[in-house]
């Protein structure tokens, strides 16, 4: 798809600087539709691939059944039967145990099916769990006592686990059917199948990746994937401080909370979300680029020829990385308090905006000054990282580039814009992206310095949660989940999903634009 005529190299070189810039800009914007088209194509391709894959699986299963002998056919019902029949006792027995455990778990009175039924998955208006706990008269104690019913949190968790178990069951079934067929083919061709001993040995050799990955991947599945799926499910329920699942069951509400996001009225979540999102993006932009350029600048200064004590300067700066942030940031935040040393001096010297001076408050009490101060203190904490990185990269730039440019009469500034900066930008492209994303989620700096305060008085509360004017999305989430009586887990989930979308879209776009991820070999 070409919307614009591409110029040849010769034509391009004829343009003056401004025209060349316009040309590049046009190219960039003209590429956007094409980019979306290719994204669309990619998505369609993905689904087509998935469809084909599933179709192939079914065809394979059917041919396995029709062509297989009685042992293979039986293993469609009894897990691992084929493996045992062909002499793979270890695998066969493991499969069999899995099947027995699965069927047992599903059918026992309070097993899988029981929980899934109780959970009423996605039925809007239904509660998660069926028995509501409550106070009932107890003749023994002659008073009302709490009789516990279902705990929605647990019901949802067990139901989710059961669903995952079912998926694992189907996968294992498919796996062992496939293995049966392979065994059959191997035996038919006159070779011996792998024994259990061989299996164990290969775990340290050609299957070594399974051994190494088992532990870390299990950790990730249990402590990240499962909680995240759970969190996503919470977004469709009414789980909050009042409906905590134990004293009050929570229920499925469908997309109601997502609609809240588009409520831009007073007290609506949409307004607050928009406000916080825009400050989050702004913060991330300033925090990333101030650190990037100032850090680079400091690195260049320290690297300059003739500067002594290079190691000392670096060590001084690195101190802010070495000292735990909650010590340094909390202390610094208190320095600027109205009772802190710097805060008092500012009041004394009247170096404050008048609105603050009149009531003798600190820079933290005004949204605008608080934001500026945040960025400045973030420079203090953030420059050293960039300085260290830039130092390493600057040393990689060959010296003769600078020397030959000097002979050609280039000035320091020209050297910087024509040699240093392009090289740095090229090499650190991915780093810029990751640090932008890290700043989006920079909990420590915001929470320890301002805790999201001062509160945003214009918006007040959104959906019952107060909104701070320096809150990032991530600290707002913290407020929602750990704040106080108005804890709103469901809204936290919704916002969490939105954060994911923002980060994902941003990364996708940036990765498609920056050069260093695409043509790494091209440079030089």
């Amino acid at each position: 798809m070409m919307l614009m005529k591409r110029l040849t190299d010769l034509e391009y070189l004829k343009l003056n600087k401004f025209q060349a810039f316009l040309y590049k800009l046009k190219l960039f914007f003209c590429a956007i539709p094409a980019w979306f088209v290719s994204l669309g194509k990619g998505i369609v391709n993905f689904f087509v691939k998935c469809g084909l894959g599933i179709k192939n699986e079914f065809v394979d299963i059917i041919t396995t059944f029709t062509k297989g002998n009685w042992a293979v056919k039986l293993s469609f019902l009894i897990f691992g039967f084929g493996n045992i029949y062909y002499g793979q006792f270890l695998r066969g027995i493991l499969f069999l145990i899995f099947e027995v455990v699965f069927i047992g778990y599903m059918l026992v009175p309070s097993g899988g099916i029981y929980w899934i039924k109780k959970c009423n998955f996605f039925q809007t208006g239904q509660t998660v769990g069926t028995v509501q706990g409550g106070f009932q008269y107890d003749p023994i104690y002659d008073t009302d006592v709490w009789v516990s019913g279902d705990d929605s949190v647990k019901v949802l968790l067990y139901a989710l686990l059961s669903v995952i178990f079912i998926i694992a069951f189907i996968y294992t079934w498919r796996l062992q059917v496939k293995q049966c067929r392979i065994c059959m083919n191997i035996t038919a061709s006159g070779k011996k199948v792998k024994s259990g001993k061989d299996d164990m040995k290969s775990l340290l050799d050609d299957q070594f990746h399974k051994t190494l990955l088992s532990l870390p991947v299990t950790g990730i599945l249990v402590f990240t994937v499962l909680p995240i799926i759970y969190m996503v499910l919470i977004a469709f329920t009414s789980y909050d401080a009042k409906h905590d699942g134990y004293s009050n069951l929570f229920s499925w509400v469908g997309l109601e909370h997502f609609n809240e996001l588009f409520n831009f009225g007073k007290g609506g979540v949409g307004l607050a979300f928009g406000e916080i999102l825009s400050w989050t993006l702004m913060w991330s932009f300033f925090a990333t680029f101030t650190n990037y350029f100032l850090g680079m600048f400091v690195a260049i200064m320290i690297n300059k020829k003739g500067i002594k004590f290079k190691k000392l300067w670096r060590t001084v700066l690195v101190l802010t990385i070495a000292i735990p942030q909650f010590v340094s940031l909390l202390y610094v935040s208190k320095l600027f308090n109205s009772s802190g040393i710097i805060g008092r001096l500012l009041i004394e010297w009247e170096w404050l905006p008048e609105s603050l001076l009149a009531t003798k408050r600190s820079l933290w009490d005004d949204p605008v000054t608080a934001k500026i101060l945040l960025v400045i203190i973030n420079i203090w904490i953030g420059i050293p990282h960039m300085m260290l990185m830039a130092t390493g990269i600057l040393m990689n730039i060959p010296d003769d580039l600078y020397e030959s440019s000097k002979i050609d009469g280039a000035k320091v500034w020209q050297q910087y814009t024509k040699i240093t900066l392009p090289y740095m930008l090229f090499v650190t492209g991915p780093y810029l992206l990751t640090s932008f994303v890290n700043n989006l989620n920079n909990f420590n700096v915001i929470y320890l310095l301002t805790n999201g305060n001062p509160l945003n008085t214009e918006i007040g509360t959104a959906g019952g949660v107060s909104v701070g004017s320096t809150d990032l999305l991530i600290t707002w989430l913290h407020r929602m989940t750990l704040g106080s009586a108005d804890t709103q887990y469901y809204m936290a989930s919704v916002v969490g999903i939105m954060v994911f979308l923002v980060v994902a879209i941003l990364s996708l776009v940036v990765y498609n634009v920056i050069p260093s991820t695409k043509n790494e070999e091209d440079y030089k």
Partner: protein
Amino acid sequence: MNKTDNKIKKSGLGAKTSRRLGNAVVYIILCIMTVVWLFPFFGIVLESFKTETKMQTAYLIPKEFGFDHYVKLFKETDFLRWFINTAIMGIATAAFQTIFILMMSYTLSRLRFKGRKLLMNFMLILGMFPGFLTMILIYKVFSDLGLTLNMAPLGLIIVYCASSAMGYYISKGFFDTIPKSLDEAARVDGATRFQVFYKVIMPLSKPIVIYTILMGFMAPWGDFMLSSYLIHENSQGMSVAVGMYEWLSKTNMNTHYTMFCAAGVIVAIPVTTIFLLLQRYYVEGVTGGAVKG
């Protein structure tokens, strides 16, 4: 203008003076930066010695020097308990996290298997979720299992370590730089993959192992976000970060401010010393791995 500039540069003397001038400016900037960078640290040390007050004052240098706050810290508060908790968390996290990350990064860098790309993309996408929302569920489950409050350090160790393999990027970048021919030579000599890992790659990986250990050890000292979920109320399982944060809350600030400074100094000394001793490895990790992303 340009012409005169060039003239100055061409004459040897002028170049020298202009460079000297440039260096002087750089020295001045660096000195100012040093003052700004060190000011808070000197401040916190000085304030911790103020014996005459417990709150923020308008001056920095104590009127009476003394170790009162340090003594109080160990006599009247549970600070020692918190410190030990955090130290234990640091050591345990360093150990397990290193094992997990090395396993993951080595596998992704050295071994080729089906689903490798899929796994990497999966972890990349997973990392885009705000990780601490997982604490909603983990807190619930852990409080049922008794892994919060008094037992919070154990719970936190599990939280820090379990998914730590997702941070494999930097050490994978390191492994990628070790030439593959080493592996192949060992394989030809009949070594299994396990032996290649254990006898060939590990001895070469000292810098990245130390880097990973250092990062693991530092994590619990600086973490506030995750620990604030599992630790609250005044429990035996408190960590320094959460405990000391309480001291600076509005209600405690006027009675605990100088105590906070003293505690801050005590926390900072060991952590900073270890960090500065191993600084070289940190720099290697940051510059080597981060760029490759």
